[in-house]
């Protein structure tokens, strides 16, 4: 049976179609999920895509966190369902306390769109098992509030537990410890600012590196079980 991966659309989500395309290219079935839904259909994993949910005028992810579907996402994540938050999705996961820390305005204050070199530092998560440890990958980064911030204790914890999933080769926005993406203790919830769904076709992306996030999850024990 094909793996079913849910992709949430909030009002203001922008990269939902792109995430669905990436899921399809990885060989899974993309299942559209609507922010107002109060229950989850049968899915094997969930992607929270990029964009500006509810306009994100207040603070990125601040309002989406309270969307009806998020109650179910939090529950499913606690059960071990793989959840990937990309950009705005990462912000939502932090606001929803599924991941620690916060995303603040870029040090340079501007929106930044460019191809970013990342180092994969944790290949044990549901979404990164297909990478080699320390693999350098290039995927697009595009956001205005992408500076990862956490207090010293949280940072120490993330580092000591190996929960930094991807790190910037060169810090684009002032993120603490060059952090581009992190995971929860269990390794099923991953959030990152750069956009793997925009590096899945040679025609439209800087590389094919992004595809591995989506193929990795197909091999995840939770998903294949």
């Amino acid at each position: 049976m094909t793996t079913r991966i849910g992709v949430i659309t909030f009002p203001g989500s922008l990269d939902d179609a792109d995430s669905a395309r990436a899921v399809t290219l990885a060989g899974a079935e993309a299942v559209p999920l609507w922010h107002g839904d109060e229950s989850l259909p049968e899915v094997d994993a969930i992607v929270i895509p990029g964009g500006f949910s509810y306009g994100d005028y207040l603070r990125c992810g601040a309002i989406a966190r309270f969307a009806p579907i998020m109650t179910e996402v939090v529950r499913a994540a606690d059960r071990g369902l793989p959840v990937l938050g990309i950009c705005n999705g990462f912000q939502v996961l932090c606001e929803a306390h599924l991941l620690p820390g916060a995303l603040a305005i870029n040090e340079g204050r501007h929106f930044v769109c460019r191809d970013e070199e990342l180092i994969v530092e944790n290949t044990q998560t549901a979404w990164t098992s297909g990478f080699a440890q320390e693999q350098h990958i290039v995927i697009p980064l595009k956001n205005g509030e992408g500076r990862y911030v956490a207090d010293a204790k949280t940072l120490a914890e993330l580092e000591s537990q190996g929960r930094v999933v991807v790190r910037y080769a060169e810090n684009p926005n002032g993120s603490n410890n060059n952090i581009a993406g992190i995971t929860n203790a269990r390794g099923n919830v991953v959030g990152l600012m750069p956009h793997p769904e925009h590096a899945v076709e040679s025609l439209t992306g800087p590389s094919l590196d992004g595809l591995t996030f989506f193929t990795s999850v197909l091999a995840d024990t939770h998903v294949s079980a």
Partner: protein
Amino acid sequence: MTLDTVTRAADQPDAPQPFAELGLKPDEYEQIRDILGRRPTASELAMYSVMWSEHCSYKSSKVHLRQFGAKAPESEALLVGIGENAGVVDIGDNWAVTFKVESHNHPSFVEPYQGAATGIGGIVRDIIAMGARPLAVMDPLRFGAADHPDTARVLPGVVSGIGGYGNRLGLPNIGGEVVFDSSYQGNPLVNALCVGAMRHEDIHLASAKGVGNQVILYGARTGGDGIGGVSVLASETFSDTGPAKRPSVQVGDPFMEKLLIECTLEVLAAGLVEGIQDLGGAGISCATSELASNGDGGMQVWLDRVPLRDDTLTPEEILMSESQERMCAVVTPEHVDDFLAICRKWDVEATVIGEVTDSGRLTVDWHGEQVVDVPPRTVAHDCPIYDRPMVVPSYLAALNANDPADLARPKTADEIASTLLVLIATPNLAAKYWITDQYDRYVRGNTVLAQPEDSGMIRVDEQSGLGVAISTDCNGRFAKLDPYIGAKLALAESYRNVAVTGARPLAVTNCLNFGSPEDPEVMWQFERAVAGLADGCLELGVPVTGGNVSLYNSTADVAIHPTPVVGVLGVIDDVDRRTPISWAADGELIYVLGDTDDEFGGSEWAHAVHDHLGGLPPKVDLAREALLADVLIAGSRDGMLSAAHDVSDGGIAVALTEMAIHADVGARTWIPDGIDPFVFLFSESAGRAIVVVPRSEELRFTDMCAARRLPATRIGVVDSGLGGDQGKPDHQFLQIDNVYGESATIALADLVAANMATLPALFAD
């Protein structure tokens, strides 16, 4: 205050009215009285004044714009022509695309962020109103001198406004222009282009047909901001102390617009819409009168039903408000509930405000009393038309006589090298990443080419790979020297930029940015430019599908350079065969196509090195442009080209440098015998491109050029091994041999550094 009803207007025929404050001339006011057979009500006066403003009525430009129709080439591709919200062209496989460029110059000077943001918002709604899904945006921009303090105020605001709105809408920015010239000091030009696509059967028009059909206003609430803003603001000259009507600025809500896009596409897909119109300049006045005028001719509107943000607004204010993010749809009565349900799903407020009638009149009620009763055509279409006086500018003869031939030119290989380093770092030619990095070019996943390519390219059909390429161009200095030739050159450059990517140019849009039409010299420039563009389109066989006119771009009698921005759209059957700007592999051969003459009038070299503007612009030969395009397209189709780049500002030297910089690989090149090295490297002759040919394709390619009689001159070879340190990006060189008996060799790293440093140094804080 008593409500000024139709009855009252008849009863009190001589009540004084503030027509002059609303921008109407005495004879225009008389004309309105003649049409109505009485004085207008306050609401009617409001409607006529905004609709008859220069911005909305094109009253000074119409007589000239008719040339686009009169000289239109035969085109089977044109599905919807000039006059609708945007033109629509057939790109095959039952796909249609629509594209248009519009100006938001005046609002962007008053409030750079919001002015530019709402410019994007407005053009996107034009595209949705055709029934298309917006696919991408572009932003041709012009500012005053790069180092002028006001440019430091305007540019960062404009750029973050365009990004702030476009990024939040989820539309990739696939290109644009950034030009600095002191003529734009008090009048920056902020033009915005949007392209969208739809299936043929989904094309929708702005017309209200079918008596009894309901008129639904949906989107944002109507507020008191921007009352008469765009129309009035864009229809008068700024005084040197700044714009006269400051508060006419609106704040955009891109989130609401994103909801409008999705909601509109859903109601269209569900077949619930008979006619649709966006609300832009002149707001409800424009939408209702145009819908009625294009349809069965009658409409009844209950204005008190319009949802307001501020319940103290008067009917006149509601009619004139230019609040953003609103649309208007005509829906049959049985579809109204379904329409409203889809709006609710997207959290978009929607209200039935009117009904199509067969009265032949547009009538508007306010709490049961009639405040408007007019023939809609007289508001929307039959505005006064002016054939304004024109005169050859007094500066022209002296300007054309001021030949750049007398300017000091570099005479040695070293001087050539330093000239190139200067040029590649001028604000006009420097890398634009400080700007373009603020724009999302990835969203939607169909961007095949974006900056720094010659055209933006979007995949329309993911299965077949069918796509479109778009470029916008204009050299205002050329247009200043000769607006007729300048407009043709803008068309030629844009056409060429599309062709170098491998796409076949198909259709043209334009944004004509000029000074005050009340200045006969400006009017002359305008007429010449329109004639040049219309003639050029006829020669090239590409129709003008729409556009926009922005007049009154002058401050204290100083008009901007005439700036007819031309956008060309081309189609490519498979985006996979696009030709990129950067060369790929060692050993590939570099050719220049076309002829180079000694042409420096209006050139970037004269401008940047000598602060000189004079002489004549380069010659333009559109038959040659068409031939060049044929070769570029055939070269792409048959896999003969690995890279191509058009030659324009800064000439061949700059084009070669850009290709090397983007590839991060150097090259060994040489000056052909029989031409002066400086002229060869820096002249801005039109009709040229640089192409890069794999060795295996060389013979086939040169045979093709010979057969078609297109001059093709081999001028170099891609070479990462110059200096011996093969392959290291920081050890790459651009070498030019045969320069006054020597070689000019410049480290690529130096060129990159010079090219990259300029904009951050000016605008990063």
